[in-house]
């Protein structure tokens, strides 16, 4: 195939040899200027040593001028200091939220992808719906329901319990909000993956006498491992960078996550350097997830070629 293409291209019009690269240029240039350079900008701010009159760091674009004082402080405070509880909350909340995502999301994705028959289209539309509804609208909905006079307390009251201060900085509300917010981002990619598993393998297993559970645990689950991992990575990344969900349903120092610390300090003057350093640390943590995901994707796209 490649040969045909090359000869065809060479014969017909040599001038279009640069066609493919030139098509890729605008996009690549865009991402260089507005993604790679900005990322370098974070480093320039985090490693800056000069402040202006308002106390804002002046970025050190030249790596020779980099100063790692602030970064060192932030690392120190992340281990045993200011940012420690923020990191702890981040890992614990996202950890629990991701487990719930697997426990709830897998059965749903599995059912819609493999078992639903007549109403599959409807189900698909319904599980895709949250994907299309504005995230903040969905959170806004919960803020109303969980309010002091909201439906949640009506239900609690109906069973004779005392009112709960849902929005007063409860960690489980933050976790539930995260699950609610990001579960669709887990289900949809997993659905797409499960949908492609060869039905014949599953039928074979059943025909050979394995019961439902056995088929699931020995055939379907191993086959969907990569799908689950992909979906988990795609859910984990935004969750780690989330701050607004937390602010909306808690807004209390008791549940602060690292995203909150970043957002607060980046947009403030004095602690912008700390904020930038935290972004770098967070990126380093997430790089593990990202790299794994990218390797999977690149491998998959190479196989598909």
């Amino acid at each position, binding site marked *: 195939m490649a040969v045909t293409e090359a000869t065809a291209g060479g014969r017909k019009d040599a001038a279009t040899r640069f066609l493919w690269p030139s098509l890729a240029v605008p996009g690549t240039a865009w991402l260089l200027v507005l993604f790679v350079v900005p990322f370098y900008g974070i480093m320039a701010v985090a490693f800056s040593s000069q*402040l202006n009159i*308002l106390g804002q760091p*002046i970025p050190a674009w030249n790596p020779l001028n980099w100063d790692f004082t602030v970064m060192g402080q932030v690392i120190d405070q992340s281990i045993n200091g200011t940012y420690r509880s923020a990191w702890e909350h981040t890992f614990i909340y996202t950890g629990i939220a991701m487990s719930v995502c697997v426990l709830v999301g897998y059965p749903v994705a599995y059912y819609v992808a493999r078992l639903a028959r007549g109403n599959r289209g409807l189900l698909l539309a319904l599980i895709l719906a949250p994907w299309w509804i504005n995230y903040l609208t969905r959170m806004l909905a919960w803020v109303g329901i969980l309010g002091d006079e909201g439906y949640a307390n009506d239900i609690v009251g109906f069973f004779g319990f005392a009112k709960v201060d849902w929005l007063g900085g409860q960690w489980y509300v933050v976790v539930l909000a995260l699950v609610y917010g990001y579960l669709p981002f887990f289900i949809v990619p997993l659905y797409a993956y499960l949908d492609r598993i060869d039905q014949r393998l599953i039928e074979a297993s059943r025909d050979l006498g394995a019961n439902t559970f056995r088929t699931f645990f020995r055939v379907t689950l191993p086959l969907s491992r990569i799908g689950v991992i992909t979906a988990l990575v795609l859910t984990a990344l935004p969750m780690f960078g989330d701050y607004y969900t937390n602010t909306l349903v808690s807004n209390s*120092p008791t549940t602060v996550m690292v995203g909150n610390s970043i957002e607060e300090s980046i947009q*403030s003057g*004095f602690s912008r350097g700390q904020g930038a350093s935290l972004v770098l640390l967070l990126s380093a943590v997430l790089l593990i997830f990202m790299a794994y995901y990218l390797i999977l994707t690149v491998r998959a796209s190479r196989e598909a070629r």
Partner: protein
Amino acid sequence: MPFDPSSPDRAPQWRPQLHRRDVLKGGAFAAAGLGAAPLLAACGGDDGNSPAGSSGAYPLARPDAPVTLPIFDDNQPIESGLQPEKADALRVLNYADYMAPGVMKDFQEKYGAEVQVTPYNNYDEMLTKISAPGAEFDVVFPGPSVMSRMVYGKLLQPFQQSYLPNLKNAWPEYQDPWYDQGSQYSVPYTVYTTGIGYRSDRVSDPSEGYKMLWNPEYSGKMGVLDDAGEALGMAMLAWDITQDINTGDPELINAAKDKLNELIPLGVKVDITQYETIANGKFTVHQAWSGDMIAARWYLAQGATTEDLGYWVPESKSDVVIGNDNICIPKSSPSPVLAHTFLNEVLDNQIAEKNFNWNGYQPPLDKLNAEYLIDEGYITENLMSAVVVPEDFATGIKFYEQTPAVENLYLAAFQEFQSGGN
């Protein structure tokens, strides 16, 4: 988009003037004698004598060391006698709910410009927004504690006084205030005290004062202001750490931070919507500005009355934290004449009264004195503690402008508290 980091037009708006390490080292050199004649914000290697504009140093105004802010060659007042610009919008940088929508609507009807408010929660945020490249605002509301910085950072423009005849309505002390002698950059907007707002129907003993916040009885139902100085200063006063809420002593600031951290297990919230949240019952006690509690009557939940609102400040006038906010015109204003007009309108007795009726913050205008406001029924008996009179400023505790180093100590401590302590 090629860039040359060293090219001058790429360079940030201000020259480097502080080495971060100096700032991080803390207030070692910052606490140096308050009250000495116009203090200069210290900065490494700068003698503070270099002409303003090229230097980053800025004077620290104090009531006993008033400051005349300079007018720079490249930042002159506008001409007099111009007509207000025909602009679509007047861009205001302000706290949320700090100006009556009715007043802004009236302005729009009169001058055709829609008043658009971009909100901030504290001065740090305000400074970030106003100093962002490309930011264009017509009106901003800073307090004395950021005035010098903003003028020396060339964020504000000097007034053309001829557009501000209504300044004569203001209390005499605000026609020539200590932080801006000659009112060259600022006109007064409001005066207020900082205390504790509470629901008197739910609080057992309001005389606990600041310590109500630390009372576990109200856990999950209390909060502090989202403002480093106010929150830490309150902790200092509540626990007798010091009476000097402008202290640059890191140990005292840390002690105050530790006290704030004690609030975290009690489920403290950090925000500035107490005027609404106390009134609607979400909070029982919250650190509050006096104006918030007067405005709270507009937000009462069904069944609650103004009788249920309370505001506590210390008995002794000399223990009360008192302050004022100004209105200024940013240098970036695309419609400076319109902005002057807006300031003048806000200083108008009638308009100011309408504004006060909505936002609850007393304007320091002679006609709208405490007696008048009480007679008119704006302030109810149970909220008398929220009234401010000019004499209070002589005795009360005020926030002053700080050196960047001290400022940083406060912000860092507050961020630690907001990040969940440790």
